[in-house]
């Protein structure tokens, strides 16, 4: 579901510009499948699928496959439209050093939602 996240993000000039000060690695967990995503100057420069022994990342988003599948629909069902909607319902857990995430929240929300664009094709 996130195989093409790099090209989806990097081809969006406005999104890259919004994240131009972002330099971090974050993790997406789909059930027990972990992926590290490296961001530099707003561009995704590396996507590394797990498993990992000692993953090094700033923050991670954990949810079940079923939740991510609904979240990544082009028009998600009610309650699945936003990360905070999932967190509020305890369907997603965001943990780690949240400073890069919160300081660039509009950027990361669109980065993490980028697979919706592919689903819409």
């Amino acid at each position, binding site marked *: 579901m996130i195989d093409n996240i790099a090209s989806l993000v990097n081809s969006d000039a406005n999104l890259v510009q919004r994240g131009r000060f972002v330099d971090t690695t974050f993790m997406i967990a789909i059930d027990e499948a972990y992926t590290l995503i490296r961001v530099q100057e707003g561009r995704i420069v590396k996507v590394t699928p797990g498993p990992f022994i000692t993953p090094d990342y700033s923050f991670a988003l954990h949810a079940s496959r079923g939740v991510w599948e609904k979240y990544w629909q082009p028009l998600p069902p009610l*309650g699945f439209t*936003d990360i905070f909607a999932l967190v509020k319902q305890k369907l997603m857990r965001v943990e780690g050093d*949240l400073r890069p995430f*919160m300081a660039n929240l509009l950027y990361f929300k669109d980065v993490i939602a980028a697979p919706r664009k592919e689903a819409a094709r």
Partner: protein
Amino acid sequence: MSPRFEPIIGRYLHLDLLGKPHRLYVEEAGAGIPLLCLHTAGSDARQYRGLMNDARVTAYFRVIAFDMPWHGKSSPPAGWQATDYQLTSRDYVRMIVEVADALGLDKPVAMGCSIGGRIVLHLAHECPERFRALIGLESAAHTEPYYDLSWLNRPDVHGGMVCAGVVSGLVAPTAPDAGRWETLWHYMQSGPGVFKGDLHFYMIDGDIRGRVDDIDIKRCPLFLLTGEYDYSCTSEATLDIAKRTGAEAVIMKDLGHFPMSEDPPKFVSYLLPVLEKIRAL
């Protein structure tokens, strides 16, 4: 496009509010039954510009919206630099009543969204006789915090951007882009700590769950409108208030937490039947 003025008039009102001199920015349009509009946390009265520019509303209603102290073009009271802004239920109720009195409004309709949708429940409980009717947009009796509010005001995170980022998902995904981003712009312009100070009321002090059953809608009619995509004030929370009070509630399709600014024409289509009922009271 040929230049044109909107029918909205904005002025600054000097008054004593909560025991202190204040300078408040007040906008209005239309004539008829006074309709006092209350903006959401960390935003301002611009949210209601669509309503104020809709002749179907302003033909019968004098639509008034003010920027709360600390918000929009209303200054915080002198000495603000030595205080932490924190909205309480007591101050919020007093503020609305004192502004209505200062404007000489005779039994206005009060309509508020989010924190405003909560405070109309407090008004319904505490002073229903002061109002012709109350309209709660995105009303919930309580909302538990679902993120750490301290992120909203700290020097290493841009306050405007994080506040807009937090609320961005509350706009319906189906909303027009212009409405979505104008709504977020208001949040980006909020003063430091103001959204967080409002959320003290929204998530802590303003909990009215224990008093909803005491609201008597015969003393003042209560109408509830909630956007289906709102996960902060949920449809379930609104319908619970309706069930417990007998108030009329409508869940609005394709709208979120900011119906009046994210898609004004769609919102007005839901509001007009309510306003017709109020005119017939």
